[in-house]
């Protein structure tokens, strides 16, 4: 059957599936990237209910709703077909994203604002849970067996490209307006949400013109589709043991490598190394741009040598090099070393005095920019407290060093190191769609592959920052202690994958 599908058709299938999935990732990411502004607009500090809703919006959407979406839409995809299911997820995702951009702030409509945001964020999580399995299955079921890894790897580029587009659009908007205009109630932060509706409209139009997956159509015509995909996927031992193997032997490790390479790295550069916004974002953008073609390379390679060892090699490289790479980030931005080089002040000392909340005391902030050789710069920010009570001395200053601007050579060195982190992502993530598709039969494929994928990525990957914070709080002396979580999970997954998985490519996915 596959041999009769023309090259033009397969290109359209890949384009329609990839563009839509990329838009879904874009929609999901912009919420996280704009979390600070969103929380000011919708979840004001000091309101306990708003704080609870904020926590649910951030954590529940990723951890609970994504796997739940995988079950709901996976079942639907195995019952009514891939095409209409992943069309529905796209509309739900795009619609919710657009609507988040239209909700008035907390100041205008009160508690209704965070409630609506939470509801739409949960719909986003649900839709994301259903999208990927559909897109990967749809492409794989159109692909010849010798090109399944390569063709599905286009779907694998979408998560990273979605991040790239989200980073790029937010940066473009932010660079073209003042912080005040960006963060205002109806300010620039809403534009990325509104842009989504245009992207989704185009993608829905393309997807509507596509036909149903040929394998699913054949099953349907023969009356062989599953009656109860959830039961067949998880209550039938033969299939359930493969779901567990997929999760613990591949996707769990892939999730932490993916999250560490793309999100933990970005967060680390911004909050631990305190690199200025523009440099930290462009480091990620360059690294993503250079690394993205490797998704296709490793997808293609997996058709030649098998999926397993490429994924295991990506995990092994992460395990061995995470701590050395992140320690270079810290070492090259170490302010103690920078200060030894006798930095000179640039411009005037800026002084800002603000009232301390619920008190008559004032906080005074002194900001001085310093420069060094090689064009390096940093801001030294000292904060003193002036007590209103007579005779009470000024509290000793807290000093912070922010907005570090790297020299050109260090900047490109960081781009190179982040490139390696994302290269590992391409190794584990490039072949994984073909790997999952080949593990499960057509009639329950959507359901069976979606759940382990979203537990691996949403739960194991999504927990990287939380467990990182937990470890940093417990062992504060080691700034890299947070990396032990992805290293530990990847090691466990590497052992299970190496021992229990097979490297054999399943040529027959038509069954």
């Amino acid at each position, binding site marked *: 059957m596959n041999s009769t599908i023309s090259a033009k058709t397969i290109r359209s299938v890949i384009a329609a599936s990839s563009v839509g999935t990329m838009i879904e990732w874009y929609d999901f990411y912009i919420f996280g990237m704009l979390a600070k502004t969103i929380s000011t607009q919708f979840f004001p500090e000091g309101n306990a209910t708003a704080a609870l809703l904020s926590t649910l919006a951030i954590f529940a959407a990723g951890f609970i709703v994504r796997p739940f979406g995988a079950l709901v839409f996976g079942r639907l995809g195995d019952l009514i077909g891939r095409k209409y299911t992943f069309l529905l997820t796209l509309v739900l995702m795009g619609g919710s994203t657009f609507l988040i951009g239209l909700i008035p702030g907390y100041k205008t409509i009160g508690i209704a604002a965070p409630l609506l945001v939470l509801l739409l964020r949960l719909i986003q999580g649900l839709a994301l849970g259903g999208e990927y399995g559909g897109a990967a299955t749809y492409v794989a079921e159109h692909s010849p067996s010798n090109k399944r890894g390569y063709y599905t790897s286009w779907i694998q580029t979408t998560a990273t490209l979605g991040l790239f587009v989200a980073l790029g659009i937010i940066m473009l908007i932010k660079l073209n307006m003042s912080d005040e205009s960006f963060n205002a109630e109806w300010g620039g932060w809403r534009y990325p949400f509104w842009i989504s509706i245009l992207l989704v409209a185009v993608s829905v139009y393309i997807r509507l013109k596509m036909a149903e997956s040929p394998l699913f159509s054949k099953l349907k015509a023969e009356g062989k589709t599953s009656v109860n995909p959830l039961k067949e996927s998880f209550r039938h031992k*033969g299939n*359930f043991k493969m779901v567990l193997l997929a*999760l613990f032997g591949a996707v769990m490790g892939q999730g932490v490598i993916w999250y560490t390479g793309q999100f933990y790295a970005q967060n680390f550069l911004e909050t631990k190394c305190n690199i200025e916004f523009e440099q930290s974002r462009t480091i990620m953008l360059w690294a993503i741009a250079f690394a993205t073609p490797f998704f296709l390379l490793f997808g293609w390679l997996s058709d030649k040598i098998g999926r397993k060892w490429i994924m295991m090699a990506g995990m092994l490289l992460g395990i061995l090099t995470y701590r050395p790479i992140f320690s270079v980030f810290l070492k090259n931005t170490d302010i103690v070393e920078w200060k030894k080089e006798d930095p000179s002040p640039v411009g005037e000392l800026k002084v800002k005095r603000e009232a301390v909340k619920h008190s008559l005391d004032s906080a005074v902030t002194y900001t001085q920019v310093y420069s060094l050789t090689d064009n390096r710069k940093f801001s030294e920010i000292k904060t003193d407290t002036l007590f209103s009570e007579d005779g009470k001395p000024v509290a000793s200053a807290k000093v912070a060093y922010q907005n570090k601007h790297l020299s050109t050579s260090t900047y490109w060195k960081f781009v190179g190191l982040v490139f390696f982190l994302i290269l590992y992502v391409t190794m584990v993530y490039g072949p994984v769609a073909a790997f999952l598709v080949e593990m499960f*039969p057509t009639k329950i494929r959507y359901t069976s592959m979606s759940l382990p994928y979203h537990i691996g990525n949403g*739960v194991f990957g999504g927990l990287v920052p939380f467990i990182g914070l*937990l470890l940093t*709080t417990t062992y504060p002396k080691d700034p890299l202690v947070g990396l032990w979580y992805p290293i530990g999970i990847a090691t466990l997954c590497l052992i299970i994958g190496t021992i229990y998985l097979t490297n054999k490519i399943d040529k*027959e996915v038509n069954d």
Partner: protein
Amino acid sequence: MNAVKKILGIVWLLLAPVVIYFLVSGAITHIDPAGKKDINNPIIWVIIIAIFTPIAIGLMIFGWYAFKGEYDHLPESSMELEN
């Protein structure tokens, strides 16, 4: 290799309750209504423990299957999955 798979099955079987124990003890240690960090927030711990417990049970079942030799031979067709 099949002997290694079975022996490691016991390790996975035991690892699951250890993970749950660490999560619950982590929650008890870090939940603090006065704290402002994510790890002080009880809601987050409830979500994480609720979602991780079935995953840990899944790891136990995986270990049990491995111990019973269910992974000694992996199915090569959908027909084999039915059996």
